[in-house]
């Protein structure tokens, strides 16, 4: 189903969503950042950006989330599972790369057991993506088999066709349902083939060459050379739409507490520290290698998907200007030479 959406109708869209009981998330300007966040009106929406600073991840896998709460009475512990965490929501204006991360992560969250927090939120949230009309040098979706107008993971894809109009393509039934629910907001496309305004993202490396090299180069001096500057923070993993590691902690007073799931990241020294004091990944090059290996080898082997959508956030945010596509370029051009 193809429709168009006029900018002038953004307001009715947001109001419409509100009326239909949706919570709306959209890009908002926040000082120096553009953040996906709840909006109440179309005025708050900001679309003049390459990429939001946060990804859609936090709406499916919050940075911190209660997975159960408990009360400790004398000789008795009673537990309560959270409810109502999955709220009917529309994410409006996320990028195709972000949306593409969702089916990739579906695999891990439905693997050995189904993670109800992820699954229920996935059901409750409709993703309306806007194809990128611009990009920057950090973007590399085209190098990971995606594109600025990929439909993977989106329920609805919007593509700019003029300064004040978007082409609306439904991708899923859920998307179609949403469009139907708010029919009046959308227009029928004018005749002819509209000119889609889509960014041209340079292809930086051959993804096919990456895994074979990784298969052979668990030991390679490149890891250390590239990562000496890494300061071991978790910024890259936290902004990444596909990094999904978490930690579980109990936060409690004397008589009650919450079991909490928090983002965690493989770049932290503590991530793999054993109680014994032994750390199987004791140096930063090992941790950097882990990040690359997980994304481009282990995940591929397990789930047949690379765990990267080429959004470039990790490189943009890196305090030490580590650049993941640069690393992958090195790998892809290393001629499979083992040291």
């Amino acid at each position: 189903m193809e429709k168009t959406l006029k900018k002038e109708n953004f307001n009715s869209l947001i109001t419409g969503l509100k009326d239909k009981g949706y919570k709306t998330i959209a890009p908002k300007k926040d000082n120096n950042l553009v953040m996906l966040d709840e909006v109440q009106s179309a005025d708050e929406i900001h679309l003049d950006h390459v990429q939001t600073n946060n990804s859609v991840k936090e709406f499916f896998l919050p940075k911190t989330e209660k997975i159960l709460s408990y009360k400790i009475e004398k000789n008795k512990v009673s537990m309560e599972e959270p409810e109502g965490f999955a709220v009917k929501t529309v994410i409006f204006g996320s990028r195709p790369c972000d949306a593409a991360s969702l089916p990739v992560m579906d695999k891990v969250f439905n693997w050995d057991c189904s993670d109800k927090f992820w699954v229920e939120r996935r059901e409750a949230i409709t993703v309306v993506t806007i194809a990128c009309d611009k990009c920057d040098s950090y973007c590399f979706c085209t190098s990971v088999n995606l594109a600025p107008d990929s439909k993977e993971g989106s329920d609805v894809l919007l593509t700019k066709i003029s300064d004040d109009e978007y082409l609306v393509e439904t991708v899923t039934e859920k998307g179609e349902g949403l469009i139907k629910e708010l029919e009046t907001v959308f227009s029928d496309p004018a005749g002819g083939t509209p000119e889609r305004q889509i960014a041209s993202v340079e292809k930086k490396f051959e993804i096919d060459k990456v895994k074979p090299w990784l298969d052979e180069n668990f030991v390679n001096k490149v890891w250390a050379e590239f990562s000496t500057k890494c300061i071991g923070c978790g910024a890259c993993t936290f902004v990444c739409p596909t990094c999904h590691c978490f930690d579980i902690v109990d936060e409690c007073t004397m008589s009650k507490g919450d079991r909490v799931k928090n983002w965690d990241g493989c770049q932290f020294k503590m991530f793999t520290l054993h109680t014994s004091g032994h750390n199987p990944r004791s140096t930063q090059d090992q941790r950097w290698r882990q990040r690359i290996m997980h994304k481009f080898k282990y995940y591929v082997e397990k789930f047949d998907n690379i765990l990267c959508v080429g959004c470039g956030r990790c490189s943009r945010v890196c305090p030490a200007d580590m650049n993941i596509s640069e690393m992958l370029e090195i790998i892809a051009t290393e001629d499979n030479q083992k040291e």
Partner: protein
Amino acid sequence: MSDETKFEPRIVAFLCNWCTYAGADLAGTGRKQYQANVRVIKLPCTGGIDPLFLIKAFERGADGILVSGCHPGDCHYNSGNYHARRRWNVFRPLLEFCGINPERIQFSWISAAEGGKWVETINGVVDSVRALGPFEGYHKINAIGPDASSEKS
């Protein structure tokens, strides 16, 4: 304290063993009455009180905190209270800068002989915090806890 019509502030007091704790004992010995809102935690010296203790007390619902030890020059450990004084001289403005009313974190020197001063001080803390009202900001973030994210999404 469950009477909702009247707010009773909840105060945690961190006292040094040698001076203020003994001063509070003296108030007891002298049967000097004071408001019962305070829960005392005894440590050897004010110098041994980490600001984290104060933060934790707020996290556990305190509306106000008192830290009290030996007068300058009287520290049982020579200089513990001097170091403590430095610590609070920077920590309190930091909390104030973050929007915490400085009256919620009070400091005093009360000697083992000053039972009366203990009574005055603790009543003063209770009254001033009562006037400020419940520490709603902190109570709120305590109550939200990890629900913050789900509230957001």
